[in-house]
Structure formats: structure tokens, C-alpha cells
């Protein structure tokens, strides 16, 4: 059955004819670690090519052996093959033990799964399990921040949204273990609903080249995965606890996996994370606590030629939003921006009050695969997701505990993928996706719906061809087509409806009038083609050159289409446009990679040209009874992003290693010849790591991070009249904060507790110099400094 075939170097045999060739050897093959019986291990006598398999008791018998020394090679699917020299003089009994390695096991079983999912011709960056474990208390966005070219759009420090090469939100697709996350990702202050403790590795592809997953990832794709389980009888798990000084909280996460040699397996995992108010170097950041709980369970059957898995996960997070960021109109904004400290500072508390977010994400999935001899591998997956997002504002009276926003997004997705080898050097991947999504905005909030009720249907089909031209050159070609139908029921303010002249353009979609509101039923169709073409060329030993062009196209999201009203957390009025069409991006990227044991680097320049790029920017100041508000309107323009990401590492000696990262991106609105808003500033990261395997794998790392000031930004400042001073004052919402430098220190040591369990202790300091700084891409930068120094201790037990 699951016999792992190993190629053998044939050793010239010198069979000596002998008088006695009737010896028998009786052997048993066991796992070196836990003495479990290894069934179906392959036993090969090199000298005479005799081959047997172990039986259900792990035993084998070889007959007709002469009096001589034999080379016996034993191999098993989940062990390292081993060779034994045995001198046979008469009948022999012997126990053979094979070493069992989980990591290697996964490599074998995964069959290069990681490279399988992604594109061979565009650069992919990975985050390992160890890296995730070290950052157990952090968010997905924080961890991704460690990759060059990936930054984040933050709302405070707990809502962290990844930005890839300058793009974010609907332009970045998050694949959570095979399921595309549908968690209201259009919102700049909506972080991905993923617990990093529930996943085992992350791959980031900067661009839309992984067409298998989506054709609209204009920014890039984040792929999280869980490891496959070994096919043997085993029970293992791990527990990680992290305690941190800033926020006076911590995280505890635990998981347990039971596997059977029949291929059945089950896994449960849970995380609890609790933090109170975080603090900046000089003050408490009131109402910034977070309470996160997540739970997942999965089980299935894993065989070589087929497999099935069902899983369910729940992620629930309650996040406080800096109290000082909740504002009325422009006059409040002036006060907040001009004040050096937040306008509201209270004592430390674990309580989370309004404004806050309370989000629950349920994900149920069932998937299976089967390998067919002539066809290839066929994968099937059905998933259901429910995202329930509650946002609470500071409100009056009976509404105090009523959310201002209550959205329920249900998504059903079906995937069908075929991975086929059409010749020795070519593979083709084909697939179909279908998705049905409904959004329900609960009217009992007493606040007009930010996003209307809608149903959305998606159908997609893709094909990707990969061809190895020669041993140096690989060629990739892919195409995908997506169709989206959006059926919404939206209440517009009559004044807005008429102001936009929608009453003449869209008069046939009006359903009815309700007071000063008008109900309409837009039915929108979007057709989105996407494609990729790429080359991978091995220049010489250790040098590789990748070239990739991708065409991506994205339908406008509900926020871009339907927004019309005050966005409280941004203190601005946001207006969408029903007439938007899809935006289209052409991205060219080149990667030069060099890797050897002592010295490696990656240089990845790119250019992304986007037509009909949807951008939101201020157009005017609007008077309301609450004062003046800046009006931000979505519009379509042509944009160009040019950048480069550089990674390098240098091994100084056996213990010391130096790492370097540099990223820069320049975003330009080509139509208006102006800079694009919210582009990440250039940044560089440099670290020195000391590692000593002999000293309990002692690891010490000192890292410096320097973020330059963003000097290219559009001027969106505006003037308002302040009655108290009887002057016109400028509201400076544009000027980016100064450059900053942060130092951090990480350390860890491993200890073996017993045969099966080990302990890793880590001690970390971030912002070691307690530097006061503000980040251009933190939406709360107007109101408060970023985080101060943080000490944390990390304990991990594997068992």
C-alpha cells in the first residue's frame, strides 16, 4: 500500500557460490521512537534483489540465504530508509528500528504541496511554524509584517490589516486553509478573522499569479495552511503561553492531534487571548483592550490515493477602539490633531467599552481528494462561512448598548480542482468555483445601513499550464474567468439620490419611497478575466531568475458601490458610486534569487499598472447640524505602483548570521499626476542572530527597524471656521508623521523534558528604547502615539 519507493544505487554484487544457501532470517521492523510495529515496510536484499514486505505484526522472513555478508535495505513510508550489513552464518533473528521524522514525513506526504498551490514563476514568501509559534500572542497582520514588501494598515494595534506592495482590503485575498475568507474585508478597519495559532504556515504571493484561488488579488494572496497528519498511531500536541507587559495580558493556546495508522485522524485546537489597555511610552491608550477566543476541530481520513476531511472553526474577537478617536465634526478633529496627547486618557482597565468591534466568524468545511491513474488528482471542497460583525459607537440613552452596525455575511463556496500531468514535463491545473453570498444588515441598530442587504453569485473557471522546457527553463501560462452577479436592496437618502442624478439614470430600479429615503434594487453584472504568464530560469548553480506578468481584474466591493453617509470611526462622510466598473491591473515582476549556504539574496522589482483604480479621497466639506465634515468620495482613476523588495542574509560564522530587508513602493495617480494616499513608507530591517545548537539551541536576535517618512502624499487638508477663535483653521489630515527607528530583541532556548516532550522558552522585548512614534499607516495616528516598550515571555511545550 503506502510503500515509499526509494531508488537504489545498485551495488555491484559479489555473490560467492557457497555450499550452504539455506539460511533464513526472521526480522521485525519497529519505530525507533515508540516501538510501534511498522507494517508494509519494504525489505530488500541488495545482493540478490530479493524483496519482501513486513506483515501486520511488522515481521518478515527471507529464505535461501548463503553464508556471507548481506546488505539489507529497509524502507517505510514515514521513516528514513536504512541500510544494514549482516553477516549470515545460520538462521538469524533480528529487530530493525527505523527512525521516524515528522518534518520529513510531511515533506514526503505533502509532495511539494506548497509549490503546488502557488505560482512557479513569481516570488513567494513563507512564514514557518516556528515563526508563528514565537508570535503566538500577535495578530496575523503583525506576523506578515515581517515579510519584505508586506506592511499593514492599522487601527490602533489590535486591528491589523495586511498591505501587500502598497495594496490592501479587497485587493488582498486571504486563503484560510483552502477557503477564501469572506469576512467583510472591504473595510479598512476590518482585520482578517484568523487565529494564527490554528495554522502551521503562511505563504504570501505578491501579485495575482495564483489563479487557482482568485483572479482579483490585485495586491496579492495570503495562504495559510495546516500541516498534514502522519499516518501512524500517535497522539501529540503542544501548548503555548505568552505573557506580555504592554497590555498586561497574554495568550494561551493548545492543540492535540490523534492519528491512526489506518489514516484516520482528529485534531482539536483552542486559543484564548486577553489584553487590557495598551500603553504608549507616555500614556495609557484608553479602551484598546482585546479579547479573542477561537476554537477549531477537524478530522478525516488521509490515504495516499484519496482523503477526506471535515472541519469547523469559530473565531470570536472583541476589540476596543481608542476612546480618543471617536469624534464629532471637523472642529473635534482640529482639537485632536493639534493636541499632543489623546483627548481622553483614563486609568488602565481590562474593560472594553464603546467604541468597539465584536466579530464572530464561523467556518465549516468539507473537502476530499482522489487520485486517478490516468487523470491526476481531483479535489473537491464545500465551505460555509458566517461572519457576524457588530460595531458599537458611543451612543445616547436606550441605544447605549445597541450596536451601530450589525452585519451578517453568509457565504457558501464550492471548489472543484483537477491537477493532471499531461506529459513527463507538463502539468495542467483546471478548476471551477461557485459561490453564493448573502449580506444581511440588521435594521434594529437604529442607524442607517452602511452596507445594504444583498445576494451575490460568483462563478469562476481557471486553467494553468506548466511546462518544463529544459532543465533550466520552466514556463507557466494561466487564465481565469469570473462572473459576478450582485442583487442588492439599498435605501438611499432622497437628497443624495437626486443630487447624484440617479433619479434619471436609475429610475427603473426604484422599488418605493419611504419618507426621505428611497429603496432601490440594483442588479449588477461583472465579468472579470485574469491571466498570468511566467518564466523561471536557472542561470547557473544557486542563481535563479523569475519573470511574471499577471492580469487581474476586480469587481467593485459593496462599500465602493453603496457607501453614502457618515463613517464614524473616520469622522468623515463617505460616498460610493453605483456606476463603477471593475478595476484592471497589469503587474510585471522580476525576481533574481541567489542562495547558497553562506550568502543569499532576493531582489524583486515590480510595476503594477491599474486602470479604473478605485480610490477614496476628499472632495469638499459638508455642513451638517453636527458641524462640518469632510466628504470623501470614491472615484476611478489610473494608478501606477513601482517598487522593489530586497532580502539578503549573510552567514558570518558558525553562530552569527546577518539579515537585511528593504522595501520601497511609489504609488502614483497617473490621471492627476499626484501621489496615491496611504502608500507604505520605505523601510529597512536589519538583524544579527546568534545561534548555538549545542547550548540548548540558544537563539539570540537583535533587530533594528527603520521606517522612513512618507514624503509623497496627496494634500487633502481643508479649512474650517472655528467659532471660538473666529478663525479659519487648517485640518491637517495629510502630513505623514516623522521617520522612526525601533529596536527589538528576541531569545529562545530548547529543553528536552523527556523522550516525547520538549520545552521552548523565549524572552522578547519590542520597542526596547521605548520610542514615541506614529506610523503613517495607523488610522489612529492623529490621536495617539503607537505602542511603547513591551516585554514578553513565551513558553512552548511539545508533547
Amino acid at each position: 500500500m503506502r510503500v515509499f519507493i526509494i531508488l537504489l544505487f545498485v551495488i555491484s554484487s559479489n555473490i560467492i557460490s557457497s555450499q550452504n544457501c539455506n539460511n533464513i532470517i526472521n526480522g521485525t521492523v519497529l519505530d525507533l521512537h515508540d516501538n510501534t510495529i511498522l507494517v508494509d515496510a519494504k525489505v530488500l536484499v541488495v545482493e540478490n534483489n530479493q524483496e519482501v514486505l513486513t506483515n501486520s505484526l511488522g515481521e518478515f522472513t527471507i529464505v535461501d540465504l548463503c553464508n556471507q555478508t548481506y546488505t539489507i535495505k529497509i524502507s517505510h513510508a514515514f521513516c528514513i530508509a536504512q541500510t544494514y550489513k549482516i553477516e549470515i552464518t545460520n538462521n538469524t533473528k533480528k529487530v530493525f528500528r527505523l527512525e521516524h521524522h515528522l518534518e520529513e514525513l510531511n515533506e514526503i506526504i505533502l509532495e511539494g504541496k506548497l509549490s503546488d498551490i502557488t505560482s512557479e514563476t513569481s516570488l513567494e514568501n513563507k512564514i514557518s511554524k516556528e515563526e508563528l509559534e514565537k508570535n503566538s500572542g500577535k495578530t496575523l497582520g503583525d506576523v506578515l509584517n515581517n515579510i519584505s514588501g508586506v506592511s499593514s494598515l492599522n487601527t490602533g494595534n489590535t486591528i491589523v490589516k495586511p498591505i501587500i506592495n502598497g495594496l490592501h482590503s479587497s485587493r488582498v485575498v486571504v486563503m484560510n486553509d483552502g477557503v477564501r475568507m469572506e469576512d467583510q474585508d472591504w473595510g479598512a478597519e476590518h482585520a482578517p478573522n484568523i487565529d494564527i495559532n490554528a495554522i502551521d504556515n503562511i505563504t504570501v504571493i505578491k501579485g495575482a499569479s495564483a489563479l487557482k484561488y482568485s483572479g482579483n488579488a490585485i495586491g496579492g494572496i495570503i495562504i495559510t495552511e495546516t500541516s498534514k497528519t502522519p499516518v501512524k498511531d500517535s497522539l501529540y500536541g503542544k501548548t503555548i503561553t505568552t505573557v506580555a507587559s504592554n497590555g498586561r495580558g497574554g495568550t494561551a493556546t493548545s492543540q492535540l492531534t490523534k492519528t491512526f495508522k489506518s489514516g484516520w485522524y482528529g485534531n482539536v485546537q483552542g486559543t484564548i487571548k486577553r489584553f487590557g489597555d495598551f500603553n504608549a511610552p507616555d500614556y495609557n491608550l484608553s479602551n484598546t483592550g482585546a479579547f479573542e477566543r477561537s476554537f477549531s476541530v477537524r478530522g478525516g481520513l488521509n490515504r495516499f490515493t484519496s482523503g477526506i476531511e471535515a472541519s469547523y472553526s469559530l473565531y470570536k474577537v472583541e476589540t476596543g477602539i481608542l476612546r480618543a478617536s471617536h469624534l464629532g465634526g471637523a472642529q473635534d478633529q482640529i482639537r485632536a490633531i493639534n493636541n499632543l496627547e489623546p483627548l481622553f486618557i483614563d486609568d488602565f482597565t481590562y474593560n472594553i467599552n464603546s467604541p468597539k468591534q465584536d466579530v464572530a466568524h464561523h467556518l465549516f468545511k468539507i473537502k476530499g481528494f482522489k487520485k486517478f491513474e490516468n487523470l491526476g488528482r481531483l479535489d473537491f471542497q464545500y465551505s460555509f462561512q458566517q461572519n457576524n460583525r457588530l460595531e458599537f459607537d458611543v451612543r445616547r440613552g436606550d441605544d447605549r448598548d445597541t450596536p451601530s452596525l450589525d452585519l451578517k455575511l453568509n457565504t457558501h463556496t464550492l471548489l472543484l480542482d483537477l491537477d493532471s500531468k499531461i506529459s513527463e514535463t507538463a502539468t495542467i491545473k483546471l478548476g471551477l468555483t461557485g459561490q453564493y453570498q448573502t449580506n444581511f444588515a440588521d435594521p434594529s441598530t437604529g442607524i442607517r445601513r452602511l452596507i445594504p442587504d444583498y445576494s451575490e453569485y460568483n462563478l469562476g473557471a481557471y486553467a494553468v499550464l506548466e511546462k518544463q522546457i529544459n532543465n533550466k527553463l520552466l514556463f507557466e501560462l494561466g487564465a481565469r474567468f469570473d462572473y459576478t452577479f450582485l442583487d442588492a436592496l439599498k435605501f438611499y437618502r432622497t437628497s443624495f439620490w437626486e443630487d447624484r442624478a440617479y433619479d434619471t439614470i436609475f429610475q427603473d430600479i426604484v422599488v418605493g419611497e419611504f419618507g426621505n429615503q428611497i429603496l432601490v434594487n440594483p442588479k449588477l453584472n461583472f465579468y472579470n478575466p485574469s491571466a498570468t504568464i511566467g518564466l523561471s530560469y536557472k542561470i547557473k548553480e544557486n542563481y535563479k531568475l523569475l519573470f511574471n506578468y499577471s492580469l487581474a481584474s476586480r469587481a467593485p466591493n459593496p462599500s465602493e458601490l453603496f457607501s453614502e453617509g457618515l463613517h464614524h470611526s473616520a469622522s468623515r462622510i463617505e460616498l460610493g458610486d453605483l456606476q463603477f466598473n471593475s478595476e484592471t491591473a497589469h503587474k510585471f515582476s522580476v525576481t533574481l534569487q541567489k542562495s547558497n549556504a553562506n550568502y543569499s539574496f532576493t531582489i524583486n522589482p515590480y510595476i503594477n499598472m491599474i486602470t479604473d483604480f478605485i480610490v477614496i479621497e476628499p472632495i469638499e466639506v459638508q455642513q451638517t447640524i453636527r458641524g462640518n465634515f469632510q466628504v470623501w468620495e470614491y472615484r476611478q482613476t489610473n494608478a501606477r505602483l513601482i517598487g522593489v523588495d530586497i532580502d539578503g542574509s549573510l552567514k558570518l560564522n558558525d553562530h552569527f548570521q546577518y539579515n537585511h530587508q528593504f522595501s520601497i513602493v511609489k504609488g502614483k495617480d497617473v490621471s492627476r499626476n499626484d501621489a496615491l494616499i496611504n502608500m507604505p513608507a520605505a523601510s529597512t530591517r536589519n538583524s544579527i542572530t546568534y545561534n548555538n545548537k549545542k547550548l540548548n539551541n540558544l537563539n539570540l536576535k537583535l533587530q533594528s527597524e527603520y521606517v522612513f517618512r512618507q514624503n509623497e502624499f496627496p494634500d487633502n487638508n481643508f479649512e474650517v471656521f472655528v467659532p471660538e477663535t473666529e478663525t479659519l483653521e487648517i485640518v491637517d489630515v495629510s502630513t505623514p508623521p516623522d521617520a522612526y527607528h525601533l529596536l527589538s530583541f528576541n531569545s529562545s532556548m530548547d529543553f528536552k523534558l523527556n523522550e516525547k516532550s520538549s520545552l521552548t522558552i523565549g524572552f522578547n522585548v519590542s520597542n526596547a528604547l521605548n520610542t514615541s512614534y506614529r506610523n503613517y499607516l495607523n488610522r489612529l495616528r492623529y490621536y495617539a502615539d503607537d505602542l511603547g516598550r513591551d516585554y514578553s515571555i513565551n513558553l512552548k511545550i511539545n508533547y
Partner: protein
Amino acid sequence: MKNFKIITLALLVFISFTGCSDDDDVIPTPVNQEEVITTLTVTLTPLGGGTAVTLQTQDLDGDGPDAPEVTVSGNLTAGTTYNGVIVLLNETESPAENITEEVEEEADEHQFFYTIGSALDATTTYTSFDGNGNPLGIEFSLDTGVTSSGLLTFTLRHLPAKPNTGLANAGGETDIEATFNLVIQ
């Protein structure tokens, strides 16, 4: 053959699934914005009797594109004391909801501020207070000086620091900011 059966079956499931008819033809209920303040009316009644002056700002579409409609019923008389009363309404509901009551109920979390432009010769005094004796300002008195004209701004702050010495250190967030152009003659 078997493979094709499986593929066909999967496709059928796929199509039947995505072909579901939508059942969202149920008309959603409109949301009438709660706790929104559309109208602020200040009635200034002269102490010794006479015609009251009404200042009103009305913004029926809230944060919609229409600007508030500001009206002043007449001019103030020089050297007169007026009793001022502020009424807040949510006129998106029918009948209109009186928000002043909500503000009064949560008096310790609210405060009105009166900002008089330097050109206008007038002074104001709080006459209504919260349970802790700090100003609330739903009622006030206005003393006019000599003939002049200028701006009078009413600001309602939610969750201000109390007590305070004025808008500058009150904090909180602005629920209303309404400016009127007044003439004293």
C-alpha cells in the same frame, strides 16, 4: 468511465447549487435614524415681555448632501435680558422625537456651550444645571448690550469633562454645532 461519472456528479451538484433562486425579494424595513438630531430651536423670550426671537437650524437629511437650513426670526433689542430655551428634535420620525428629554436624562454627560463672536455685544449665563450642579445649558439667559451684529454659536458636547472652563478644555465629542448671525438693534 468511473472518473467521468464522478466529475459529472460533482458538476451537477455544482450547478444545482449555484442555480438556487434568490429569496431576497422580501422588502427590507427602512431604518429611521435614531438619536439623530435634525433640528435645534432656540427661543429667546425677552424678560420684560415682547416678541420672542426664534433661532432654528434644521437638517432633515442629516449627513446627506443638503446643508442645514438656518433661520433667525428677527433682531434682538439692545439692553435686554432674554430667557433662552433650547429644544432638540429628531424630525425623521413621525411624530418628531424630542431629544432634549434624552439630554436632560443624561444631564451629567452633556453640556451646551455658547460662543459669542467678538463683534456681537452680548453675554450668556447658564440657568440649567445637572445633578452635580455643573452647567447643562438647555436653559440660559442672554443679556444684550449695545447695537451690534455678529455670530452666536451653540455647541452640544457629549461626554465632556465636567466641570470645565469652556469648550477649550471640555473634551468630549460634538453632537451639535450651530452658528447664527444675530443683529442687536
